[in-house]
């Protein structure tokens, strides 16, 4: 090798590499505007198109929602440009999604989770829509659709319900009766164990199903008001009332399906489908796992048994899904029109015809196409004195996901440690609720 007098490498090679570098820099420079273009050009301001962000990625609901949008387009001439994301991913990205360039209308949940984004100014109030659709909904639904400021932010579409699901043929075969009290419930669990059935199917790999069981025991034992206070961070988790919930849970825990920590809710549902399990405390969307019509017709449910005569079975956990309007919709007029349509009994009727695991939020929706299961769910919801959403919809999501999910899993593993678990929850709760 020959060194140049100045000590720097040969000019020939250096120029070539410089040119190469220039090319690289040009590519990079060209790449940056391209990247930034990705974010902005997603939604068009075409008055004949409304964009909609959907979290309904499962096959059954996706198809059902699609049919509603088709019907809307037929009626109004406005195309709905649906941007579907995986259900969990949508939830995980919701913060950045709503702060970026969200679609005009997006799928979301009623309850605290809706109010949170309304309060943060990431959703637009839709009182004008509610002037038209208000009459279609019962008072409980109207309450669920309002933000903390009293304005409407949400159009409910479908409601599921949590209860104890079972198969009629199994109950008939063994001569079981639907339990209405705690003692009957425990006796039934014992009998099922004797009959070599798994008394209560259970899977908590996803960490949220356990919250459903907690909610049921909590509002049966302590009532709706205590549920609200506890979820809002006002009541203490070290209260003896909470301890009593876990004591009752410990009583039925031995009758839960073993190995639940590694099982998804879908797999747990399969044990009910295959008649290996007697009961399943779950949401009505469990029906989506019953793919054969004969199995689905055999599915039935009863309200979680009474624990306190004061509260009876007056509360129903009925998580409601629906739509919100983003903070700065590109096509506000079109989006308003779409929301008005989504709030009609007609739109709800289309949905519940395609997905028999949910019922319409409106009490005016056409119920003639309801399956017996939907009819029963509809009656239970209409007859309820109080409606709750779900632990992670009624409380702060940061609290439920980072504190309650691991804490409940810990309890399920070590029911005897309940005292230390509860004081740990209370300490963490104080920090989280203080930060707002």
């Amino acid at each position, binding site marked *: 090798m020959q060194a140049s007098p100045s000590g720097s490498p040969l000019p020939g090679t250096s120029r070539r590499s410089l040119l190469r570098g220039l090319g690289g820099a040009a590519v990079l420079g060209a790449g940056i505007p391209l990247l930034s273009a990705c974010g902005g050009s997603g939604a068009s301001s075409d008055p004949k198109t409304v964009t909609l962000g959907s979290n309904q990625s499962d096959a059954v609901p996706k198809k059902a929602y699609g049919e509603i949008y088709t019907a809307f387009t037929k009626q109004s001439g406005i195309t709905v440009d649906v941007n579907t994301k995986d259900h969990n991913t949508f939830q995980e990205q919701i913060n950045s999604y709503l702060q970026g360039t969200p679609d005009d209308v997006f799928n979301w949940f009623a309850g605290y989770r809706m109010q949170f984004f309304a309060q943060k100014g990431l959703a637009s109030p839709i009182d004008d829509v509610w002037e038209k659709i208000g009459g279609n909904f019962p008072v409980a639904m109207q309450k669920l659709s309002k933000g903390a400021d009293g304005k409407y932010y949400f159009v409910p579409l479908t409601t599921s319900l949590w209860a104890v699901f079972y198969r009629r043929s199994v109950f008939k075969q063994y001569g079981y009766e639907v339990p209405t009290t705690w003692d009957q419930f425990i006796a039934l669990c014992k009998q099922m164990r004797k009959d070599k059935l798994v008394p209560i199917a259970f899977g908590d790999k996803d960490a949220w199903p356990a919250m459903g069981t907690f909610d049921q025991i909590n509002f049966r034992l302590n009532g709706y008001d205590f549920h609200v206070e506890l979820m809002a961070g006002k009541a203490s988790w070290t209260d003896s009332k909470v301890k009593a919930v876990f004591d009752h849970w410990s009583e039925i825990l031995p009758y839960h399906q073993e*190995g639940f920590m590694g099982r998804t809710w879908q797999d747990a549902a399969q044990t009910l489908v295959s008649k290996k399990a007697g009961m399943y405390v779950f949401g009505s969307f469990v029906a989506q796992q019953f793919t054969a019509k004969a199995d689905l017709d055999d599915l039935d449910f009863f309200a979680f048994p009474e624990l306190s005569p004061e509260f009876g079975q007056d509360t129903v956990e009925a998580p409601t899904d629906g739509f919100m309007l983003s903070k700065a919709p590109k096509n506000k007029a079109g989006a308003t029109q779409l929301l008005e349509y989504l709030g009609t009994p007609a739109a709800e009727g289309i949905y519940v015809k395609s997905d028999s695991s949910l019922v319409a939020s409106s009490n005016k929706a056409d119920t003639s196409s309801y399956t017996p299961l939907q009819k029963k769910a509809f009656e239970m919801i209409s007859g309820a004195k109080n409606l709750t959403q779900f632990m992670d919809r009624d409380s702060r999501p940061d609290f439920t*996901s980072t504190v309650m999910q691991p804490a409940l*899993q810990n309890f399920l593993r070590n029911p005897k440690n309940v005292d230390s678990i509860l004081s740990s929850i209370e300490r963490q709760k104080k920090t989280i609720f203080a930060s707002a």
Partner: protein
Amino acid sequence: MSTETKNPETRKAAPLASPSGAAPRKVPQGHRRLLTRRDRITLGLMAGVPTILHVALVWLTALASIALAFTTWDGIGFDSIKWVGVDNFRELLTNNPQFWPAVQHNVIWFVVLILLPTPFGLFLAVQLDKKIRFSRVYQTAFFLPVVMSMAVIGFVWQLIYNPDTGLINSLIGANEPGHYIDWIGDPDLNLWAVLVAASWRHAGYMMILYLAGLKGVDPSLREASSLDGANEWQTFKNVIFPTLRPTNTIVLVVTIIEALRAFDLVFVFNKGAQGTELLSILVTNNIIGESSRIGYGSAIAVVLLLISLVVIIPYLVSTFRKERRA
């Protein structure tokens, strides 16, 4: 060779040779002539663009994350950032039931990787280095898991460990009531179950690293030791292994990095449920998602950064010291 040794002398000599200030001015002029305007712009871009990217994507984000660790922020609007001092760290160290298990699991992860799959990878490399038949087939088979993404590995093993329909429980009949083995959920089992999957991949990785190291061992060393009457084990222990020193350093660093960045496999496997908590998963759970406890999550990330520094700084110091000596 001679020009190279002479070169620094001439360079140093040049400014000394000129007594007046005219000559030093001449030297930069020479540079200016060599580098045209365009060259300088290009050079500026070449050095500038990567520097800007590096500073923006590595340093600024790291510093921002450290700053955020002392705040509380829900990620919505900059005006909601509130300074809270060391509250996040106090909360983390005293109140978070998942923090200490997570630190412990990261350490276990490292210890297991360095004690089991690493020696096994070395063993495989030594065997494959012997030019046995179908060596390429074995190499490919052992290296295949490394090519797969961790998420895919997590998914595959999760199917194997599934309590109801998984391969293992079905084979040993552990999916009946009363005999359940919950590989994924049981905190006494799941870390080990997931470490089997991690080791499966890590062994292949280590095998390739060692195989490359072994290819670089001078064959005459083997010859000499066999002439001296050393048996295979003695040759390996006293001759081959000491020459693999540079490879061992790389292996150590790679394993430490793997232990600290362990995330995807566990996240797919069981989302870091009880028994498999890891620092990286705690960071993700707090920052990403609806929860958005960005300040708190950043505090965990800072702890992870500190642990990484404790491991990396001694390594860098010793490497630089060696370089300076050489």
